[in-house]
């Protein structure tokens, strides 16, 4: 049957070629679309994790309600509020940072952790001023948790420890202020006090929002500026597996009333968007593969119709119904395997080329994941086999005697 299937394929070169191209496009298209989209999503995900670690622990913000105040003033009595309590109850600073760090060091799934103090303030130089995100970091531990050190394009993170009032400034902010390394800029704290700081480095992440507003200093420097000695606003944690961060965060949340949040919980909108993108891609690919499958179905169905008399003679000389099913199924299988292999090669080649395309600020992101290739190949093979199965089954059902009666 194999030889006959091959003969059938080559005897109808144009039809077979169209089927082959369809399958190759299906497989290659799946690989290219999925690789680009996954690559882009991975890039965004890495950026999120790079800057903020897998888990952040910060002081919890609570909404004040009548329930949260029950029993505080008049225990055991019904209270009728004239004006119901409202607003937020929060601590700007983490109350138990030391306790957290000691506990985190003992957990097997925690790779490293670091402290931060963050606030929104203003910086100025001459007549220029801008609102900034001031971040106090531990220059020793921060690189163990995030990749922030890799984004320092001039100077080094460790220079923040070389003295008081040293800062690293985002490249866009630097341009705005018209400053350069070794210049002094002023930071105005929420109390309105001005602190001059010296620029010892430049930070560039490619994320314009960060590059326009981020100012990094040592924890001590930022505590001084914010006039909050010993205070910490958050602890950033790196775990053994970023994909399990939500699970680890849930476990950590049992230790304290502080707010423990994984990177994916904090960026739920982003993840919803990526899921939506994935869904759109899957629907597009499904539609495309469905069209390819219909093409295969139509070609094979036509072939079964054209080959009825030959099917009849095959059956009369001893070939079984199953043999005829296999004959047509084999054609679908051979074309889909050949098309799938071509699709794999074409997909790989296209991804290799796409990766060389430069976009502003970065190259095109392409995911090199073996599972994408396996999925692409399997998807078209299964679809093509399914599309071939129906005509093959019809061929198997044909009664030789009815065909002979019809044609004689």
């Amino acid at each position, binding site marked *: 049957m194999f030889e006959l299937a091959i003969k059938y394929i080559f005897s109808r070169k144009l039809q077979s070629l169209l089927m082959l191209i369809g399958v190759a496009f299906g497989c290659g298209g799946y690989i290219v679309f999925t690789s680009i989209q996954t690559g882009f999503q991975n890039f965004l995900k890495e950026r999120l994790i790079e800057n903020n670690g897998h888990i952040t622990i910060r002081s919890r913000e609570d909404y004040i309600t009548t329930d949260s105040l029950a029993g505080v003033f008049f225990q055991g009595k019904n209270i009728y509020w004239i004006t119901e309590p409202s607003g937020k109850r929060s601590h700007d600073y983490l109350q138990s940072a030391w306790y957290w760090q000691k506990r985190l060091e003992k957990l097997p799934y925690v790779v490293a952790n670091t402290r931060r103090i963050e606030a929104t303030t203003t910086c100025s130089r001459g007549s220029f001023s801008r609102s900034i995100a001031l971040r106090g970091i531990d220059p020793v531990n921060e690189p163990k948790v995030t990749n922030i050190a890799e984004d320092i394009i001039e100077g080094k993170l460790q220079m923040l420890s070389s003295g008081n009032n040293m800062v690293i400034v985002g490249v866009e902010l630097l341009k705005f202020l018209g400053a350069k390394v070794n210049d002094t800029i002023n930071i105005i704290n929420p109390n309105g006090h001005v602190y001059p700081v010296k620029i010892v480095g430049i930070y560039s992440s490619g994320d314009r929002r960060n590059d326009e507003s981020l100012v990094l200093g040592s924890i001590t420097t930022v505590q001084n500026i914010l006039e909050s000695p010993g205070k910490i606003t958050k602890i950033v944690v790196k775990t053994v597996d970023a994909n399990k961060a939500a699970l680890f965060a849930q476990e950590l949340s049992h230790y304290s009333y502080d707010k423990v949040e994984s990177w994916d919980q904090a960026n739920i909108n982003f993840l919803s968007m990526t899921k939506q993108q994935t869904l759109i891609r899957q629907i597009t690919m499904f539609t495309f593969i469905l069209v390819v499958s219909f093409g295969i179905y139509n070609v094979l169905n036509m072939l079964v119709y054209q080959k009825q008399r030959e099917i009849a003679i095959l059956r009369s000389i*001893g070939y079984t119904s199953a043999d005829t099913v296999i004959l047509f199924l084999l054609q679908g299988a051979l074309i889909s395997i050949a098309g799938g292999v071509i699709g794999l090669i074409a997909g790989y080649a296209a991804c290799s080329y796409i990766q060389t395309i430069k976009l502003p600020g970065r190259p095109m992101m392409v995911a090199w994941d073996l599972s994408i290739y396996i999925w692409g190949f399997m998807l078209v093979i299964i679809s093509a086999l399914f599309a071939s199965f129906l005509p093959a089954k019809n061929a198997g059902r044909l009664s030789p005697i009815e065909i002979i009666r019809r044609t004689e």
Partner: protein
Amino acid sequence: MMAIEAQKVVKSFGDFAALKSITLNIPGGEFVAITGKSGSGKSTLFYSLSGLDTINSGHVRVLGKNIHAMPQDELHDFRNTKMGFVFQFHYLVSELTGLENILLPAKKKNLHKEKREYALYLLDYFAIAHCKDKLPSQMSGGERQRVAVARSLIMNPEIIFADEPTGNLDSINSEIVMNIFREINLKNKTTVILITHDDEYAHLADREIRLKDGEIESDVHYKKR
């Protein structure tokens, strides 16, 4: 040994009875022509005797086996090894060469390598050696039919069923094909069941069974040639 024993075979299509309780015995090695006008039931008898079609009642024993009671797989195998078929339309596989078409039944049994020599002999014997590597589309009608006959013989069947094998051929090719059947019958002692509406070819047979309205009208044994 009886090649075919048919007992009270009835075949109906709805209310129409195509075969009305046919009983006949065909001894092994006999050349039998089944004749009759259109609609007399000769093709239906052909399909019923060969097991290509089912019957409503009665029994058909081919080489001692009740073919209508056989499981499908066994019946396919039986047809492959014991029976050869030639139809009015040659039904060659258009993608295969003459040699490949002849070897098609052998391929089912994975015997095509062993049978290749015999296939070449048949090509030569039927004077169609030049068709060995030709596709059916490159052959004449007579050549195609001779390839179809060669295909029916490749497994050395004990019975050849031929349904109007000359129906689509000119007189010269018809004679060639009929002589081939006669030779096969005489040389190999192969039973030949020939459906024809041509009296001239019917007289080449040992016996002529004439059907009329689904019944045997006459059963004549001719003197052996």
